[in-house]
């Protein structure tokens, strides 16, 4: 393909030889008739798309000033001051304006914990304690009600903190659930196998939206009067169960890919079921499925934006909220782009991190 620019060229060129531009072009962009056609098409598309984008996004864009200037360039230039005007609403949703340092601080704590957890050197028992304390601190920050902090109910939570809370919890809790479901589906005990298979197929067979609707509308119908489970909690549970069912199937793929000899070797050494599963089966099966598993987690991260349909305003939801202001309505695209950028940075970081974990997991695999 025309886009492949590294690798072959550096390998083909003799070391130390001066770079020949024509030769490089021929080798990488025009090596075959098909490649030449693809190169020309790609080039055409770039010419078609990039200049208007640059004109709209940079040259004609409004970076400072007020609404009037935006109105003047409406349709031909981007109105980036929309973001400057509305970023607090987009980032923190309906959380009381004066108290927004609390979700901000919570976000910082959460990201710090995530960053620390990504580093292998920190994989020590105290990290678990740090998470425990972190959860406590984050809960106090978000809810308040003690230490002189005003109480803020979960229906005011929103924006980026809500997105992070929903997706971090979804990933953290769906992962063990998925492992249990995947193992259960392969259990020798028919009852466990049936329950796990039934759960996976049921949850996998319906859209996440309907799971969220059920969590939000139907569960209260079944509960006795006076008992109310928090809406955020219900949505969170729905997302965890949904992700768990998906990831369980991914993990089952890894379990099935494991050579039978590995299990026989563990059996013949006298390892019990849990020892065999914990030391031999899962480490290998999980490392086999890191890429599809991360794929599922990235999907989950973005799917949390569906909570908007049950009246929770996550990052995406509060961007829509910001665009509801009649004066700024024409510029909601800029807001969505801003939100998309945050989503992209998060998902891309997750993808990059998964490569690192893959390398760690593969260190022994040189078969």
């Amino acid at each position, binding site marked *: 393909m025309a886009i492949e620019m590294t690798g072959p060229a550096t390998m083909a060129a003799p070391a130390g030889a001066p770079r020949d531009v024509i030769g490089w072009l021929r080798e990488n962009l025009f090596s075959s008739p098909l490649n030449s056609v693809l190169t020309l098409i790609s080039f055409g598309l770039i010419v078609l798309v990039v200049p208007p984008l640059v004109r709209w996004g940079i040259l004609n864009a409004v970076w400072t000033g007020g609404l009037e200037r935006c109105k003047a360039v409406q349709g031909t230039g981007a109105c980036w001051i929309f973001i400057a005007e509305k970023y607090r609403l987009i980032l923190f949703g309906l959380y009381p304006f004066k108290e927004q340092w609390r979700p901000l601080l919570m976000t910082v704590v959460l990201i710090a914990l995530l960053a620390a957890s990504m580093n292998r050197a920190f994989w020590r028992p105290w990290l678990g304690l740090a998470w425990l304390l972190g959860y406590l601190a984050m809960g106090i920050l978000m809810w308040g009600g003690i230490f002189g902090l005003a109480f803020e109910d979960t229906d005011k939570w929103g924006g980026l903190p809500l997105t992070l809370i929903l997706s971090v919890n979804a990933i953290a809790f769906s992962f063990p659930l998925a492992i249990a479901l995947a193992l259960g589906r392969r259990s020798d005990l028919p009852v466990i196998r049936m329950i796990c298979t039934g759960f996976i197929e049921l949850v996998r067979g319906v859209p996440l939206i309907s799971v969220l609707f059920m969590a939000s509308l139907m569960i209260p119908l079944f509960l006795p009067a006076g008992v109310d489970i928090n809406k955020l909690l219900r949505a969170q549970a729905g997302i965890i169960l949904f992700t768990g069912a998906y990831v369980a199937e991914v993990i089952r793929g890894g379990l099935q890919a494991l*050579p039978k*000899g*590995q299990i*026989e*070797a*563990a*059996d*013949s*050494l*006298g*390892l*019990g079921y849990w*020892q065999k599963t914990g*030391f*031999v089966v899962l*480490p*290998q099966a999980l*490392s086999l499925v890191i890429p599809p598993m991360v794929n599922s987690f990235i999907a989950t991260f973005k799917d949390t934006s569906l909570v908007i349909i049950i009246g929770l305003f996550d990052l995406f939801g509060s961007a829509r909220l910001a665009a509801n202001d009649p004066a700024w309505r024409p510029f909601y695209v800029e807001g969505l782009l801003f939100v998309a950028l945050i989503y992209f940075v998060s998902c891309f970081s997750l993808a990059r991190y998964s490569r690192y974990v893959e390398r760690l*997991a593969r*260190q*022994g*695999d*040189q*078969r």
Partner: protein
Amino acid sequence: MSAAEHTPAEAASGPIIRIEHLGKWYGRFQALKDVNLAIARKERIVICGPSGSGKSTLIRCINKLEDYQEGTIVVDGVTLDENVKNIEHIRREVGMVFQQFNLFPHLTILQNLTLAPVWVRKMPRKEAEALAMRYLERVQIAEQAGKFPGQLSGGQQQRVAIARSLCMNPKIMLFDEPTSALDPEMIKEVLEVMAGLAREGMTMLVVTHEMGFAREIADRIVFMDKGEIVEQAPPKEFFANPKSERTKLFLSQILGR
């Protein structure tokens, strides 16, 4: 019968493995037909026969890697039945070496060796590591302790696999075609380790096509065909004087005479 409970008389003097009227089916195909075999302590048995004769299946029944439908197997006084405790007890006492080595690729050589002693025998890690290093030295591979299985040659991997089994201090060792997946130049190093083990008095059941090894090491050769034991005899007699036509045919094919 509980796992630890031995029948004292038998544990002391009788056969360490007693297989009686063993029958196994894969669906409607009968893989083992009325197999009877008693193995004495320190006895070295080589099982041979054409492929598909049920020899691997037979030794895999002894530690219940395969299920069987008929007959009984008693290992060191413990009956191999559906009781998980008994199965695990027998597996602790019976080591097994596979054709495909089956080392754990995600663990280092040393971790491969210490896993079962630490978690099954509840041995302190330091002690297990010292034990592992002793066995690695014995199979002449101690300098590779920190490497991963994928970095070793086939012959080295199989020697590690033998050392891994020995770390559990088994009373019996089962070898399921241990050299069949090896390049010719590596077969010798593995057979030498096995011969050393035999000299030390390990009870061994070896499924192999290495007739030179059988002649030199075995106390008894068991010839199987179509799921049955056709003939068993000490090596000299077995090679010089095979009784059944099937044995003669097999020997003529494998020895080329």
